[in-house]
């Protein structure tokens, strides 16, 4: 009887281990090429309590440098950003963040207000897969799923990623369990330059009104922050494309006013920040490069300190130690990308996938 029980237990253990191994092997690692998929999970590795948490899409994680904010203002911040992060995903990330810590302010980039429905499975995955299991993750999955998706594929990722068996490469073995850091407290660094030329004007839309679903989650985000005494700051990053319509801007102005929130449209502050679209973007105006991100961080840091009283925490031993580590990586990455640019004309190593 004992022998049989042991055999059953052993069989179950082997079966579960096999499934775990296969899942880990087949999951995308996002360690080269598309790094954005690895960013959400990195948040849990930061042991510090943040005063400011940025939540949103690439207009935040490529345009704000938390390292710069720390070095120059002593602001302990983190960007919980992911590619095409939709507002309901931002809401659930904010909900989880507030459950895990208590930031003074949450900064939300409003570009995602233009999406009213689930969009793209691949982007959903990059935002949601990295979240730890909680009611927030469940809520985010349910709100985000496209018609082709199934909840069970989030519970058992092997059901989604099994088809990667023919695409496995060295990264899948190298990063089977542990991953490298790809961001700097959520910031995705690029040092190269590509001037913004011929940025297209926005095409007229038939309807400029943001959707009900987008407003529903913005209301939830507002209530969440108010209920938890967290300052919600709405921002529109200064990037030139996707186009930000005046009608959209007015809706955000009105919303902020009626809900007693701060809304900052950085598109209107380009001169004050000193942005130079010939030098401060790496992809022709879609995103800022490091130079642009540091300029924006410099301006925004001042706003956070002066208008929202975000404290300067430099001098706290634990934080100093943490940020020294991040800063070292930051400088090394800056150097690596700069060297690559000189050697190969691109920030990427020649043996990188991308």
């Amino acid at each position: 009887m004992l022998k049989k029980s042991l055999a059953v237990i052993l069989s179950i253990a082997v079966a579960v281990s096999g499934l775990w191994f296969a899942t880990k092997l087949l999951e995308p690692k996002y360690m080269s090429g598309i790094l954005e998929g690895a960013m959400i999970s990195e948040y849990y590795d930061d042991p510090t309590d943040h005063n400011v948490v940025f939540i949103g899409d690439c207009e935040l994680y490529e345009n704000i440098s938390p390292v710069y904010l720390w070095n120059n203002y002593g602001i302990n911040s983190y960007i919980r950003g992911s590619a095409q992060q939709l507002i309901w995903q931002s809401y659930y990330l904010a909900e989880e963040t507030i459950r895990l810590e208590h930031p003074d302010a949450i900064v939300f980039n409003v570009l995602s207000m233009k999406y009213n429905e689930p969009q793209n499975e691949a982007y959903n995955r990059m935002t949601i897969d990295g979240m730890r299991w909680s009611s927030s993750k469940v809520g985010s999955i349910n709100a985000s799923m496209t018609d082709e998706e199934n909840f069970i594929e989030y519970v058992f990722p092997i059901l989604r990623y099994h088809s990667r068996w023919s695409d496995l490469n060295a990264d899948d073995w190298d990063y089977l369990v542990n991953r490298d850091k790809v961001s700097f407290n959520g910031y995705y660094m690029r040092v190269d330059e590509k001037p913004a030329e011929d940025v297209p004007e926005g095409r007229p839309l038939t309807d400029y009104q943001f959707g009900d679903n987008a407003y529903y989650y913005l209301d939830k985000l507002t209530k969440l922050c108010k209920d938890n005494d967290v300052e919600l700051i709405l921002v529109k990053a200064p990037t030139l494309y996707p186009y930000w319509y005046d009608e959209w801007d007015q809706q955000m102005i009105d919303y902020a006013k009626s809900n007693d929130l701060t809304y900052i449209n950085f598109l209107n502050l380009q001169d004050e920040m000193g942005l130079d679209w010939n030098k401060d973007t790496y992809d022709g105006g879609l995103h800022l490069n490091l130079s642009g991100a540091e300029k924006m961080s410099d301006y925004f840091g001042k706003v956070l300190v002066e208008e929202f009283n975000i404290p300067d925490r430099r001098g706290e031993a634990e934080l100093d130690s943490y940020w020294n580590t991040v800063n070292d990586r930051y400088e090394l990455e800056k150097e690596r990308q700069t060297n690559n640019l000189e050697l190969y004309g691109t920030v990427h190593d020649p043996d990188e996938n991308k």
Partner: protein
Amino acid sequence: MLFTSYEFIGFLLAVFVIYYLLPGKMQWPFLLLASYAFYFIADPRYLIFIAVTSVTTFFAAKAISDKKIAFDTWFKGHKKEYEKEERKALKAAEKSKEKKIFLACLLLNLGILAVTKYTNFTIANINSIMSTFGSENGISFVDLIIPMGISFYTFQSMGYLIDVYNGKHEAQDNLFKYGLFVSFFPQLVQGPISRYSDLSKTLYEEHRFNWRTVSFGLERILWGFFKKLVIADRILVAVQAIIADTDTYNGFYAFAGAMFYALELYADFTGGIDITIGVAETMGIKVTENFIRPYFSKNIKEYWNRWHITMGTWFTDYIFYPISASQFMMKLSKKSRAKLGNNLGKRVPVYLSSFIVWFTTGIWHGASWNFIVWGLGNFVVIMISQELDPFYRWFHSKVKVAGTFGWKLFQVVRTVLIMSSLRMFDCYRDVPLTFKMFGSIFTDFSPSQLKVEAFTGMGLTVYDYAVVFVGMLILVGVSLVQRSGSVREKIATLSAPIRFVIWYGLFMATLIFGAYGIGYSASQFIYNQF
């Protein structure tokens, strides 16, 4: 709800757990409820059709059976009162009354099948004829729903009715029990076409949880999923590419397409049946086998005794024999023997009966000329094969190859090639195109078509083909082992670690190499459409 969907697996799990938690007497009513829920989820409107078929055949069969029993009882007590001729007349009168009920029910249900499945096909043909005669005003097509599995459950019900009418067994007394026989969800969508006398043996019994039965059922389900997801749904991509672009994919590609389709259809259909039989088995219910390694058949006749067996026997028992034994055929036989001589004349009724069977087999598969021609193609091949029998005997008397491995292999390959060629009618848009593509195999062959790049341009990578190839080898290997008995029984005798490696390996192979989920379009089982 596709058999390969997460929803079906969830549904199955729920049914399984509840089934074994319920007291034995409640098990079959619960299965009826689950079967109707399964049908309801597919489309609530389908319920009306299956309910009408169930109710009408139940009451018709009951009326026939009751009349039969009442008459037999009365007749036993009174037959001495009548002369032989009077007794014959009484029996005939009784049979005539039963026949009226029988025919009314048969026509109603076959009428439903005909209207739902064949109305637009009929309209299309009428319009085609009208346009030939210059008429521009065609009849508009009608928007009809075709209930899922209607061909299967209608045939199953009609089989039951015919058996009761012929006195093979008495009618079921309980409408709900009969309802379960018609709607039993694992076999509702693609068969097998069960006989009441077979399925009822275990369908209504109380079943206690038995690990061996359940594990055997699960193993069969897993094997079905492997065939469907790893082989059928993966090679499907290449089949679809070849069919969709006939300008590019002719010649050798058309041949490859026919071979790929043969593999896909086998893995798809037998995989679905494995899931059906496995699901039933986990609940202690025995469903009739539908395949016995058909690709090992040495001739077409044997092939049809091993492929979709329940359909073949249905057509044989309920169409071929009644037609062959009908008064009309008897008269025709007499006349043809008189006019054409005994040797040729005796074949006329047999061939006519076979022609009718294959015509109906074809049209049962689908409302299109492709299927009709496919059915008649089978008829022609079987007839030619029969007519060539003297030649084969002469050949074997001269050349001593019969019984050798080489000859057997030749016979198997020949059968596969003939059946695959006929199945090209399943694939292409219409009959002329099918003939054209078949002809192109011989006329448009070019060595450049053999390049690997040509096949990787069909939406599959070299890795995909490798998976299909290995899957096919496993299929062949299992079939070879199966010839000497149940593979599951054999595996059950192996040591626990080896059993674990086999079944866990199959599970992981299906999980990883299966063509399912995002990036793959969920493919309906091919036979669901029938």
